[in-house]
């Protein structure tokens, strides 16, 4: 056996996105060349810092933004020192030492200490409640404070500040943005775009004060408010400072490296000590420091190449583009848009649509681009800018983007084909065109989901999904057909509609029969198709088809919500949101008896008991049943809640008995299984306290009767409802809603919310059927009523009585596991 050369020792200070990407490149090229040791001041693995905003707004969780999980570190033999801050670099001995005394010797050292947020040293800046917006700890603190509601002031109207403001607003706080410059994001946007952005934020209920200078943060024990230069006082429970960042270069400076604003590096990313590299936000290259992800990724590639002793890559600086990650606000900015001699501009403005685009040209080349409202062409403009492409030939139509630039409408496919391989397609995950097309060919990928799984492109914010589809089409040619029927899953070639049709047409009444008839490719399906088939059969053959528990997700199998630690949460039904002292007492007793750690109110105004052990579930249910409480189906692809306000019973403004109608509707609809969860709201007047206009089905009571709404949602997508019709009586309202439910039950694809189904079949079709075809409406209603007679049994009572007992007890054969 040959003696292998000893591995070189690579030490990295910092565990952010840049060194993570650098290691990806390094392991891709030379997986065994280095023993890697990482020191990380944060006690975490590598996560996607640019996705902190979706975490703050509640659209993503920490788990969703991890880039490299524990396994990755293990698999690559990386020594990760979590929560250890390096305090000394001994360049002579080539050794770093952490605060706790841990040391590591290196052959090559990479400093990736990032940057720290700038804090304006106004009086009160050190009060509890004054936060920065930099890492997950900040986000967690903000979320904690936001739980209590109230006012928040965000100082700084730049990219980070606005994302923080939008996130805090979505968490239910009143938010004021205080910004020193006269317009928002003045480094990225011109005045006009800054103005449009301000209007949009105001529309969302975020206060914006520009030209405002913070003088003092008020409070003694904790933050109470902010006083501006002009004397204005804004109350605040939290102040978030997002006024800029400065490179963390202190450690490098103490080690005697050249440091100006950041750690000075050459085009090879080497510092003044050739065995030490600096990478990311702490580095200063040709006088520039960068705070956006794309340049950091370019640097990462160069450092990896240098470590592999390849000198074919060097860093030449970056032109950067910016996208605001606030859901629903489309804003893109790249390059330099300042006015200047010899500069011209092309502006497109459609005030009614809220679209604004501006290109700044110099010598027939794009040097700056700002887009608001419609940013689809942003990356293309950015590429033209980076390429310094001469645009004189297409100047007349340039502002309309690649589809039209050049005179005649260009085939969009040709535009995608013309993009160079290095063109970044997915900004969130830093994936370029060549990586995507390469993976499609090498790994035989055929769908957007495949590309997501293998390259992570379009796996984060998803705005590049269209581009990924085009790349698939371009690479696969005729083999890719985006409009083709999407199969239910890999077990079949048939789509949902076809499967549903065949079940009814051929009277298939068991899962085996469906799989036989449609030539399923697997013996018993998978976790995607089995739940779908189980639902389709249940819906088609009420009272006949026997539900298959093993084809249900665990929540529906045991009628409780699985939590991240494997315990469950239990939510009793509260009809229309009403409860009594006896019910509350029973809940309190159960909480005490089973030592349930958390009790909280849900968004649907019910009580959630979290952290129940699985084996306790049947007795918890038995106790709740004894007090008259039944399962709230809070876990179900079925009817969940009917939220209500107090209506005419108590409210000065209520026009109808909204609580009464909510209770009637819930008693009528409960127990029904549906393609996805269904939530209702009934508001007693147009003030809409029950928030009926973002529910799957809503009722807004008006003087003349009941306005029925549908196709709203407040989940991953927030959607206001559409009006179905206004009816005069409660009976009519119940009939229309029952018919709508059944129509959705019979037609939608499994896991499509009601609004998605409505989008697919068309709102007019639904209105037309329910409003103009009385026979059809009554047919749907009657089928719903018929189906309900088999559905309305309390699943808790069944299980408390012993159904599926095997689910709740572990096997205890008293295994003696002493080593024999």
């Amino acid at each position: 056996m040959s003696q292998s050369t000893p591995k070189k020792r690579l030490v990295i200070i910092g565990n952010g996105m840049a060194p993570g990407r650098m290691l990806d490149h390094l392991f891709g090229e030379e997986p065994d060349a280095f023993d890697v040791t990482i020191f990380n001041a944060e006690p975490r693995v590598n996560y996607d810092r640019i996705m902190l905003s979706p975490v703050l707004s509640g659209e993503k969780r920490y788990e969703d933004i991890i880039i490299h999980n524990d396994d990755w570190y293990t698999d690559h033999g990386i020594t990760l020192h979590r929560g250890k801050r390096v305090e000394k670099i001994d360049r002579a001995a080539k050794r770093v030492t952490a605060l706790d005394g841990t040391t590591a010797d290196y052959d090559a050292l990479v400093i990736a200490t990032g940057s720290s947020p700038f804090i304006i040293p106004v009086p009160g800046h050190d009060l509890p409640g004054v936060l920065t917006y930099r890492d997950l700890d900040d986000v967690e603190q903000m979320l904690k404070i936001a739980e209590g509601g109230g006012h928040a002031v965000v100082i700084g109207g730049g990219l980070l500040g606005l994302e923080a403001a939008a996130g805090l607003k979505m968490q239910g706080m009143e938010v004021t943005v205080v910004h020193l410059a006269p317009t928002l994001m003045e480094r990225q946007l011109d005045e006009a775009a800054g103005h449009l952005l301000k209007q949009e934020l105001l529309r969302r209920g975020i206060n914006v004060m520009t030209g405002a200078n913070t003088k003092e943060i008020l409070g003694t024990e904790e933050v109470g408010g902010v006083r501006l230069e002009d004397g204005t006082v804004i109350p605040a429970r939290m102040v978030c400072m997002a006024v800029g960042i400065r490179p963390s270069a202190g450690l490098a400076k103490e080690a005697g490296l050249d440091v100006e604003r950041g750690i000075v590096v050459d085009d090879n990313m080497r510092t003044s000590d050739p065995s030490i590299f600096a990478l990311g936000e702490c580095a200063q290259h040709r006088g520039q420091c960068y705070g956006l992800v794309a340049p950091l990724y370019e640097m990462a590639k160069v450092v990896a190449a240098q470590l592999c002793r390849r000198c074919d890559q060097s860093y030449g600086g970056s032109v950067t583009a910016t996208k605001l990650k606030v859901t629903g606000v489309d804003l893109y900015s790249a390059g330099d848009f300042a006015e200047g001699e010899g500069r011209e501009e092309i502006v497109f403005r459609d005030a009614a649509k809220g679209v604004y685009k501006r290109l700044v040209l110099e010598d027939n080349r794009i040097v700056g681009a700002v887009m608001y409202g419609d940013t689809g062409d942003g990356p293309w403009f950015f590429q033209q800018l980076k390429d310094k492409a001469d645009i004189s030939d297409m100047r007349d139509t340039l502002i309309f983007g690649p589809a039209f630039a050049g005179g005649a409408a260009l085939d969009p496919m040709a535009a995608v084909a013309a993009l160079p391989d290095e063109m970044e397609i997915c900004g969130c995950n830093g994936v370029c065109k060549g990586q995507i097309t390469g993976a499609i060919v090498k790994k035989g990928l055929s769908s957007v989901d495949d590309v997501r799984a293998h390259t992570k492109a379009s796996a984060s914010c998803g705005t590049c999904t269209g581009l990924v589809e085009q790349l698939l089409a371009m690479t696969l040619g005729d083999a890719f057909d985006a409009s083709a029927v999407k199969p239910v899953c890999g077990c079949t070639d048939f789509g949902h509609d076809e499967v549903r049709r065949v079940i009814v047409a051929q009277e298939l009444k068991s899962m085996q029969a469906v799989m036989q008839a449609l030539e399923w490719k697997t013996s018993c399906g998978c976790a995607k198709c089995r739940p779908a088939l189980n639902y389709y059969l249940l819906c088609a053959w009420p009272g006949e088809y026997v539900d298959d528990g093993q084809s249900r997700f665990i929540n529906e199998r045991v009628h409780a919500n699985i939590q991240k630690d494997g315990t469950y949460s239990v939510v009793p039904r509260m009809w229309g949101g009403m409860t009594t002292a006896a019910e509350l007492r029973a809940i309190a007793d159960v909480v005490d008896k089973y030592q349930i750690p958390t009790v909280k109110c849900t968004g649907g105004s019910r009580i959630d008991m979290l952290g129940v052990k699985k084996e306790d579930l049947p007795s918890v249910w038995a106790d709740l049943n004894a007090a008259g409480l039944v399962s709230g189906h809070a876990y179900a692809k079925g009817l969940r809640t009917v939220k209500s306000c107090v209506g005419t019973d108590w409210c000065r403004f209520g026009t109808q008995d909204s609580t009464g109608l909510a209770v009637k509707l819930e008693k009528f609809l409960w127990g029904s299984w549906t393609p996805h969860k269904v939530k209702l709201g009934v508001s007693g007047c147009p003030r809409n306290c029950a928030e009926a206009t973002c529910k799957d089905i809503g009722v807004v009571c008006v003087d003349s009767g009941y306005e029925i709404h549908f196709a709203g949602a407040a989940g991953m997508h927030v959607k206001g409802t559409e009006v179905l019709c206004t009816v005069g009586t409660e009976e009519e309202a119940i009939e229309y809603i029952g018919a709508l439910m059944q129509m959705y039950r019979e037609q939608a694809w499994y896991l499509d919310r009601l609004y998605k189904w409505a989008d697919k079949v068309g709102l007019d079709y639904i209105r037309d059927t329910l409003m103009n075809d009385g026979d059809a409406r009554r047919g749907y209603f009657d089928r719903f009523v018929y189906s309900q007679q088999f559905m309305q049994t309390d699943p808790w009572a069944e299980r408390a009585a012993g159904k599926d007992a095997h689910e709740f007890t572990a096997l205890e054969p008293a295994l003696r596991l002493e080593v024999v």
Partner: protein
Amino acid sequence: MSNDQPLWTDVCALEDIPRRGARVVKTQSGCVALFRSVDDGVFALDDRCPHKGGPLSQGIVHDRSVTCPLHNWVFSLETGEAKGADTGIVQTYPAEVRAGRVHLDLRRLAAKVA
């Protein structure tokens, strides 16, 4: 008797595990999930997804695979390996059905404890 010899121990009847389902065996060092496939194969794996520690016994069983209930990772019941684009492996233990009774290799489980 050599230490490599399996030490088969009766755990439960095959019928105690639902077809396309699982039961949990509690051991001193954590839970082991016993799965029964549609064709009555029985498999023993650690009841812990390598991704986020999800209880695999609560997942949906299909063919000779299980889908984790927390984030839908799919594992082979035979090898314990993650399928698709995910990577990771779950510890498996020898399990056999003899005359309608499920047997586990006590020695391998003991190694888990050690």
